[in-house]
């Protein structure tokens, strides 16, 4: 219900310009690909279809073949599942943790707020790629571990952002009234604070999604993200790095897939109506 009314509200203001429309189309495209990947792939992803490796773009294999002679189009379409899926799960978890804790800290205040803020700030001072390396070295790289790690890395930033917003809302009269009425913290943050910070939080959600896609791709590129036989876009670049001297599509296409997604999300956020975007600053 909340989300629906939030959507309609911003819908009135959506005087999308061309860049915004193109960006949304690209994002929608990858979302559809991620959902329907098994129906769209022309060949099974593990099947070696061509004796030639790093093949060029042909009518048979639209995006060429990879280092084992597998169909690149199928692998990129399937890679969308891993990249988009893991990043979405990670960003949902990160924002859920960050926003909930941020609102709670703003609403409760006092020692809880101070200790949590200090602790998460310190946590934030571990460079993200480094944190990923240490965790993967310790517990190995499985998809649930990746999602939790990515969420933990980006939750402190989300906490900081939503806490700053919630502190302002928390001083409003209607929050004081709700607290005076005897409502609990959970009610206050859910019913009073959250609806008032939803639009900047959504913009932040988008940015964080981009960062998570970039970090996930980086981890996979280093060989410590998604493990074979599965491959996200970062892992596809790594696998086919040998194609670099030939300039084969196998290494270029997954790179462009990543770039098209992240640039589109950034452009969409940049072209949101001023009113929605600037509330958070």
């Amino acid at each position: 219900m909340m989300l629906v009314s939030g959507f309609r509200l911003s819908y009135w203001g959506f005087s999308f310009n061309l860049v915004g429309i193109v960006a949304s189309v690209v994002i929608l495209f990858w979302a559809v690909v991620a959902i329907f990947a098994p129906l769209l792939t022309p060949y099974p992803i593990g099947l070696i279809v061509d004796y030639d490796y790093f093949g060029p773009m042909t009518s048979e294999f639209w995006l060429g073949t990879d280092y084992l002679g597998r169909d690149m189009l199928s692998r990129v379409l399937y890679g969308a599942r891993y990249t988009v899926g893991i990043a979405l799960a990670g960003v949902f978890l990160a924002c859920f943790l960050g926003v909930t804790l941020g609102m709670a800290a703003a609403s409760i205040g006092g020692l809880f707020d101070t200790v949590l803020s200090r602790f998460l700030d310190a946590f934030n001072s571990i460079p993200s790629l480094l944190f990923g390396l240490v965790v993967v070295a310790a517990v190995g790289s499985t998809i649930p571990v990746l999602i939790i790690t990515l969420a933990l890395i980006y939750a402190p930033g989300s906490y900081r952002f939503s806490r700053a917003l919630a502190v302002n809302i928390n001083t409003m009269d209607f929050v004081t009234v709700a607290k005076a009425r005897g409502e609990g913290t959970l009610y206050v943050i859910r019913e009073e604070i959250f609806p008032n910070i939803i639009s900047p939080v959504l913009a932040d959600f988008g940015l964080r999604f981009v960062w998570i896609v970039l970090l996930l791709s980086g981890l996979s590129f280093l060989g410590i993200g998604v493990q074979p036989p599965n491959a996200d876009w970062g892992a596809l670049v790594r696998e086919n790095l040998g194609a670099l001297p030939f300039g084969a599509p196998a290494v270029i296409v997954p790179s462009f897939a990543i770039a098209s997604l992240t640039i589109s999300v950034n452009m969409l956020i940049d072209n949101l109506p001023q009113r929605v975007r600037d509330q958070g600053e």
Partner: protein
Amino acid sequence: MNGLILSVLLQRLGIALISLFIVSLAVFAATEMLPGDVAEILLGQAATPDAVAGLREAMGLNEPAIYRYFRWLGGLLTGDMGTSYVNDTSVASMIGDRLSNTLKLAGVAALLSVPLAMFLGVTSAMFRLSPYDRIISFLTIAVISVPEFMLATGGVLIFAVYLQWVPALSLASEVSSFGELLRTFALPVGILTVTVSVQMSRMTRAALIDILSSPYVEMATLKGASMPRVVLKHALPNAIGPIANAVALSLSYLVGGVIIIETVFNYPGVAKLMVDAVATRDLPLIQSCAMIFCFSYLFLITLADIAGILANPRLRT
């Protein structure tokens, strides 16, 4: 240097120390998360119960975690970083001269990126909404939006494969002349510089534009000062604090960037060592490298914060 400024500085240093302590806890905790037993993993096929018990005893794994944590921390502080699990040599000697290689790469990139970012940020704030500003803004968004490894592989593809201006690998040991040194380092340093400076220039532009919308700047414009004069003489000195902050935050990109760049170019630095250590799960080595990176990062951030505090005229009386 008055009392107020001193207390602010001390407080900042205290926060840095607390952060470092929490970071060391987190890095140490990573070993504790290891499923199963270090001794068992090390012995692999030869893990008879007796051998595991013996190795556990020898490694001190039977002691409580808190005790091992403080011994590890004490060792780090005195320069004893422990012994590598994989090849049984001391971690300190493995890191040794690789550290100077990494510092060279990161240092040169930082030295180049700050002036570049300042130039781009200040000029695009000066001519904001002009075609120049729009082009810079589009390019910086594009660079921020793509992963670092894509810039690196793209750079290799264009400059080393197609144009053949520079070699694709950088092996610092095989460099004989100065010209060769430049050629070898140009690509890794250049790409690292670009990744770090785009974020910095965006934040510089934002900080400066923020100041440009304040009433005293309007006053300066109304009295007839030229645009460059308003920006450079009136706005810039007040933007130094936020800009120092932007520099600090961008340095996190330097740490992430170094890891990717060293891997792509096979550069013999600490980051490459660490990535290789992850493959073999050599935890003492990983922990030491992680602490080196976290320490340098916190050091730079604190330094930039202090610069920001010192540049704030309200604190300087």
